[in-house]
């Protein structure tokens, strides 16, 4: 059965609804990076990039590791897996329903045809 959506899932999708944050994720998908490297292609200040990173971290999409003064960032796949699971559950839900809907329509059609013939 379809499970209820979690708050984390809502945060995930909220975090993804921004082009800069999606670009950051795309960069991280190529491999771990440090904050300074991430800021470069965006023509943004470190502070601005840091703000986006905090949103991504809160959504659980990114994990930060500190090595002295260097902050290294890595992509965290779990929330995306949950999003995928959401899709899979609804796919099952609707496919089951649509099989029944189709059968039911066939029955209705047969009834109506029969009714028309009886006239």
């Amino acid at each position, binding site marked *: 059965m379809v499970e209820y959506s979690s708050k984390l899932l809502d945060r995930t999708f909220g975090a993804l609804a921004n082009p800069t944050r999606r670009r950051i*994720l795309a960069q991280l998908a190529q491999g771990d990076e440090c904050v300074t490297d991430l800021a470069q292609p965006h023509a943004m200040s470190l502070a601005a990039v840091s703000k986006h990173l905090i949103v991504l971290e809160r959504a659980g999409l990114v994990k930060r590791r500190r090595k002295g003064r260097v902050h290294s960032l890595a992509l965290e*796949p779990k929330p995306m897996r949950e999003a995928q699971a959401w899709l899979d559950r609804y796919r*099952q839900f609707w496919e089951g329903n649509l099989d029944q*809907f189709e059968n039911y329509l066939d029955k209705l059609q047969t009834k109506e045809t029969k009714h028309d013939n009886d006239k």
Partner: protein
Amino acid sequence: MTTINNEVQKPDDATLILRRMLNAPPELAFKAWTTAEHIQQWMRPEPGMVVPRASMDLRVGGKFRIQMKKPDGEFFTAAGEFREVKAPERLVYTWAWEKDGSVEGMPTLITVEFLKRGGQTEFVLTHSRFATVESRDNHARGWGKIAESFADFVEKA
């Protein structure tokens, strides 16, 4: 559960799209999809499930509730509001799960289209994580770009 005439699409924007050819005209399909008495007959996401109650106030701003019951007695109630009602070809409504009378989680958005194809109907159901068309479309733009490398990453992880 899969049937040969069922085509499933899963784009990268957390939107589920299902298409089917229905062997009935759009008018009949629309009526069966939107009338409480009919819904009680066909809605069965899992074998053995029944719909003891359904109510549909089919107009823009009108509400619906569908109570589903599993064989073990557990209830699931789906509820929402109609956003667009264009019989017999198009229907947009929100969809949320209720538990003990209150909504659980964020409502989602469903668009159903019944397109006339000769004597048949092309049925398209779009179910999106997002309760508004705007947020769904905003999200769809751009998300596709990172999907490929991300999918690789997730598979490897």
